[in-house]
């Protein structure tokens, strides 16, 4: 009885399973077709319209310029007939998705926000050499060519090892500078100058040692205005490495031999780590001392945290990315000043955190062309200018020509319709080849970086002396580099 009676039941069960399976498979195959076929192409006199009807996916960190572009992709769609989906993610999540996408052999994301250290260096072979597209007569040229991009940024964000090849176009350029409460520095200027014995006005002449004294002075004498003199982004996070590196370099230390070269063009095998040098240890010791007088909450902040605390009026000054100027200006208009970071025995160093946009090597020919159109548009002078004015924040330009526009020049002074330009004088100084701080561009940087900020965090928590911290970073980094990188 059972054998027979269970027949319909089995059929029912199977039917249910089949229905479920079929719906999944159908959804699957449809999307599979979608991602395998190339973008449409129509013969057109207008180079910009040849890929109309295509759809591009752009994966980006949630940065200011992307926010500005995401807020207004219409001009691009109007110009080209191409739709753009923008996926913004936090950097770790972005790297994860990009790496998996590159590994899968098919490009879900044609346009990639290629962080030089976390995407470009480890996955350079997954990115298109853009020279091939620039040379293609059927595609529009870069306005002003590659030369219009600020040279140090072009190398740092767009190249890897090879001096000629271009894997990404500089897209944003956050750089760490000294941000300070201009109003308070004016208010206390004379008293501070008397007490400290030097002119405290931030600028090229100040040293880190003086920075520390100013911070202490504020902590002691200005508590009615601010709670602490300085704050830092010293959470166990990428930000801690950034904040520390400024001090490290200005004290003459570096991560590897030939640091400038490893920073600018990058290297696959950087050799032994040099953090055990006397200069590096001296830098670490100073940094430890500096954090001792800084807001204790520094150890919980990344750049967001320190930025928010600064805007909340808790700090008199901090080193932070210059693109925070727009939000500073919104909250405390006219009260914030900007300068290049203080000097150490070896000069000033200002960490550069810019990124380029590149094209996935998994793209099919027409997709690649469409992606190139987007790259040209997104980094064009017009778009960069529009970003500067954007209400959604907006980054700062990466092109020399944009900084020379009269309109932009005029915005360097208050009242400014482009608040990020208030930092122009400071970043111009910071971007000089001798002042720009470039972290090592090596494929295994992510893991080295983690070892670096973890051990720094141990130092700051008192679990290790500066010397111990530097030596333990060295031994870890050497191990990581020795393991090499395969991608």
């Amino acid at each position: 009885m059972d054998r027979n009676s269970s027949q319909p039941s089995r059929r029912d069960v199977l039917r249910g399973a089949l229905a479920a399976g079929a719906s999944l498979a159908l959804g699957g195959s449809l999307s599979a077709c979608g991602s395998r076929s190339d973008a449409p192409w129509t013969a057109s006199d207008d180079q910009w319209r040849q890929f109309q009807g295509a759809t591009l996916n752009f994966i980006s960190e949630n940065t200011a310029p992307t926010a500005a572009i995401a807020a207004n992709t219409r001009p691009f769609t109007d110009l080209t007939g191409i739709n753009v989906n923008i996926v913004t993610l936090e950097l770790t999540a972005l790297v994860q998705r990009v790496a998996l996408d590159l590994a899968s052999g098919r490009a879900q994301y044609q346009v990639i926000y290629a962080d030089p250290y976390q995407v470009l260096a480890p996955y350079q072979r997954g990115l298109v050499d853009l020279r091939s597209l620039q040379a293609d007569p059927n595609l529009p040229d870069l306005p002003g060519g590659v030369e219009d991009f600020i040279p140090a940024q072009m190398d740092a964000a767009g190249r890897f090892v090879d001096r000629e090849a271009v894997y990404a176009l500089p897209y944003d350029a956050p750089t760490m500078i000294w941000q300070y409460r201009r109003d308070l520095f004016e208010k206390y200027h004379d008293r501070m100058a008397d007490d400290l014995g030097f002119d405290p006005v931030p600028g090229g002449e100040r040293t880190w040692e003086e920075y520390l004294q100013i911070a202490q002075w504020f902590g002691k004498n200005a508590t009615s205005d601010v709670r602490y003199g300085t704050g830092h982004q010293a959470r166990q996070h990428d930000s801690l490495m950034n904040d520390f590196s400024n001090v490290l370099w200005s004290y003459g230390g570096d991560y590897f031999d030939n640091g400038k070269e490893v920073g600018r063009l990058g290297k696959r095998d950087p050799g032994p780590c040099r953090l055990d040098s006397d200069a590096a240890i001296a830098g670490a010791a100073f940094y430890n001392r500096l954090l001792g007088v800084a807001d204790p909450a520094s150890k919980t902040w990344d750049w967001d945290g320190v930025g928010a605390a600064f805007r909340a009026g808790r700090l008199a000054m901090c080193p932070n990315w210059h693109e925070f100027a727009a939000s500073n200006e919104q909250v405390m208009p006219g009260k914030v000043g900007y300068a290049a970071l203080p000097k150490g025995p070896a000069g000033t160093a200002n960490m550069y955190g810019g990124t380029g946009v590149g094209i996935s090597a998994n793209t099919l020919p027409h997709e690649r062309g469409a992606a190139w159109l987007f790259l040209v548009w997104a980094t064009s002078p017009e778009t960069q200018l529009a970003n500067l004015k954007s209400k959604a924040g907006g980054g700062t330009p990466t092109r020399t020509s944009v900084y020379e526009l009269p309109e932009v020049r005029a915005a360097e002074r208050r009242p400014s319709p482009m608040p990020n330009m208030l930092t122009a004088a400071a970043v111009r100084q910071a971007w000089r080849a001798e002042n720009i701080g470039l972290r090592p561009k090596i494929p295994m940087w992510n893991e080295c970086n983690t070892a670096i900020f973890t051990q720094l965090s141990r130092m700051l928590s008192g679990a290790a002396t500066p010397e111990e911290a530097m030596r333990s970073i060295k031994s870890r980094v050497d191990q990581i580099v020795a393991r090499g990188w395969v991608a």
Partner: protein
Amino acid sequence: MSTSMTPPSSTRQRTGAGPAVQTGERVITPAPPGVPQSPLEESSRRSRWGVVILLALALVWTLVPLLWMLLSSFKSRADVTAATPQILFTPTVENYVNLFTGPNNLGPYIWHSVLAAGISALLAVCLGALAGYGLARTQMRGKRHLAFWIISTRMAPIAAVVVPLFLIFRGLGLIDTIPGLVLAYLTFNLPFAIWLMSAFFAEVPPSLEESALVAGCTRWQAFYTVILPLTKSGLVTTFVLCLVFAWNDYAFAVVFSGPNSQTLPIAASQLVTQTGIDWGQLTAIGTIVVVPMMLAGLAVRRWLVTGLTLGAVTGE
């Protein structure tokens, strides 16, 4: 009526088998009137106060963060990060408006979340009910091993299994599709649903099917028309729990979703931007993510226990 108020009989009543149902040796009788529901009730006044204070503390501890999130979501940009927490402030719906009008309109995210979590929970319940019934009734050797294997698949560390799954899904074209997310969620929902449903089925006395079979039903008919309706509460509970797990997922969504399938928790993480966290919008999103699941969870609260304790409560 809830399980906790008149517990011994309620689970029995759900099975619809009447008071004659026996569990093991224990015959369960309704409490005679006058007998205190809780044996501790007559103890001293002092400890009564202790209880009240403890509960009050627990309530404060539990609710303050949630209320604070709700409050903050109605604060303006300045109030939300004010150095002294603001309790009195001019409420604004700005944050919610921004969420639905900006370039990253939240609408599609909600839709993806509803679709992915809903379909995944539905599939999990259907397959889980079938397999759970089989598991509860089978007398095969190694049944326990099978049961343990099922639940152990749910223990697999997410970060480790995601890579192979990603490659399989990519091969099948399932990345950035709702079916892909549904399948990804099934990796943790399916074993859970099977276990849960088998606990609910185990509570139904086999004598019921036997009488149905005697009455001429096929096994499928007995299952479908007699047993399944008895476990309606189990089905609902399982559905809701699976829904909650899928809805709340971030780790899978971050890998398997894409521009056409981003879910709500992804939207929340997108507000943590390089140039500052917009806490007003973030608390607003938090509220949007959390409130529906709380309502759904509370709706099935009285049946949650049976499922979660896998039947052991009733001492079978």
